């Protein structure tokens, strides 16, 4: 029975996303600007020093960037949905409330994946994407990173009362996570304190896994993956499980549900 409900929740989210086609296309602009402007600029500079192809190096990070924005923002929309009609249907439905979190995480991950796959097609058409060394590793990496971003977005969403200050989330979560991940530069030669932060950032392992799939020759030029595939996978699975556990437990707590019930009744307790 829960299967039908989860399917319906995911289906509804995807319908909503596909109806906002403009947003879907505009999500492609950001990574393309990075690729064509930053990638070309830094690429030209780095080539003087005999480094490898910087644009190719950027591709795994940019795919992860799309997942980060797509999946995490889709998860964060739960905060808006707390005041929506649909949340009323969900909290009164006959399943445990943590299923709402799990279903929304999966649908947010799918939302991110759809955007990433669209970017894959665009990059392919532009000739920037080489065939991955292992297609299954590439797809698995995308799915895992999408789930990671969705799960972390969900943790923020269940702890946030409002998203009035959206810029705070952008500046203090999304951008630092992206910049401190190895998406834009190799981690190896970073100062120790900075490297420590990047190692603690689970997103780094998502980027690294895609580097394994897309930049198999990078190891020789210093422009490839830096951790083992197993480590990338285990760290991400561990972080996804941990984040979901926190989000589910928090969302199921009586006071959280109580304040949600109050919001859903228009702030009245009368």
């Amino acid at each position, binding site marked *: *029975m829960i299967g039908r409900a989860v399917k319906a929740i995911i289906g509804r989210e995807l319908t909503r996303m596909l109806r906002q086609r403009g947003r879907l296309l505009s999500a492609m602009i950001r990574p393309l600007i990075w690729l064509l402007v930053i990638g070309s600029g830094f690429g030209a500079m780095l080539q003087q020093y005999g480094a490898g192809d910087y644009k190719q190096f950027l591709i795994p990070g940019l795919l992860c960037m799309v997942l980060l924005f797509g999946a995490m923002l889709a998860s964060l929309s739960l905060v808006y949905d707390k005041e929506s009609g649909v949340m*009323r*249907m969900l909290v009164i439905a006959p399943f445990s409330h943590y299923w709402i979190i799990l279903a929304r995480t999966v649908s947010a991950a799918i939302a991110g994946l759809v955007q990433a796959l669209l970017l894959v097609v665009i990059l392919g058409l532009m000739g920037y994407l080489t065939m991955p060394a292992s297609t299954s590793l590439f797809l698995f990496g995308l799915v895992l990173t999408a789930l990671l971003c969705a799960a972390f977005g969900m943790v923020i969403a269940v702890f946030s009362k409002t998203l009035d200050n959206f810029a705070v989330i952008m500046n203090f979560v999304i951008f630092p996570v992206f910049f401190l991940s190895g998406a834009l530069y190799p981690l190896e030669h970073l100062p120790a304190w900075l490297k420590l932060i990047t190692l603690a950032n689970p997103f780094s392992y998502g980027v690294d896994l895609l580097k394994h799939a897309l930049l198999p020759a990078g190891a020789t030029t210093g422009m490839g993956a830096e951790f083992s595939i197993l480590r990338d996978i285990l760290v991400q699975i561990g972080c996804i499980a941990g984040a979901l556990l926190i989000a589910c437990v928090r969302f199921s707590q009586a006071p959280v549900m109580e304040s949600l*019930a109050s919001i859903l009744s228009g702030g009245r*307790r*009368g």
Partner: protein
Amino acid sequence: MESLAIEAAGLVKTYGDLFAVNDLDLVIPEGMFFGLLGPNGSGKTTTIHMLSTLVRPTAGTIRVAGCDVLKQPVRARAGIGLVFQESALDRNLTVEENLDFAGALYGLPRDTIDQRCHELLNLFDLEDKRHVRVGALSGGMRRAVDIARGVLHRPRVLFLDEPTIGLDIINRRGIWRFIGRLRQEHGMTVLLTTHYLEEAETCDSVAFLRQGCLIGQGRPADLIAGLGAYILELEADNPKHYIDMLSGELGAPVREGERLLFAIQDPDFQFGDWQQRLQHEVRSLQLRKPDLNDVYIWRNQPETTAAGEPA
């Protein structure tokens, strides 16, 4: 033996020092149409939220539709329908898409949803709106679709939290007609809250809440009859003078600003005599039948609340 749809005992809910609900007992038999009445802030919504598993009571026990709400909230929710004060629909989806979604959340098979959707939309005269976006419907129609959404899974107990709030009188009557039809067709237990007390006169039983406490319960007709045969309403610049003058003959009135309300027990009350006597002194004078509003006003008086409940 009569089976019970709702059984709550010693229900308490506190928020800090505030008692939102205070030692509430409710016993509602299967099939009853029950009204929980009171002004805004009297604890009606909190009570519905506790009965429907959304809010955990500070103390007390609750059984709804045969389930212990505190121990088996998920099972209890399967037997409950809840229509919130605010819409539980997605405005961007059509009526049909909303009902499909609601049905799926209850694990209903596709053809069951289709058949019930058809049946409910017919019952509520909304069949031609099936493919219309909910955002494009009028407030009354949206509320009707929301109620259809709340009963799609055939709950044993339906909670309606202020089903007519924010609607004009025509739509309010429409919603009451739909609720009536629904009860006729499915015989479900309905617990509703409203602060339009006159609307609750069709209920089998009503309970009055004030500051989270029950201050009276019974059949509307009994409660109204218990109050008196008529209400004499008098408005004057100097109400104190008329309290002193008339209390001996008519009993103590209830005062609301410059308005005095006397409960008249005598069914043969001669209004004409009183009109002649008072019409040149007072601003207005009228005699009317009592209604649930009057019952609430009397119950709400500190000195009369201890008088107990009529049989």
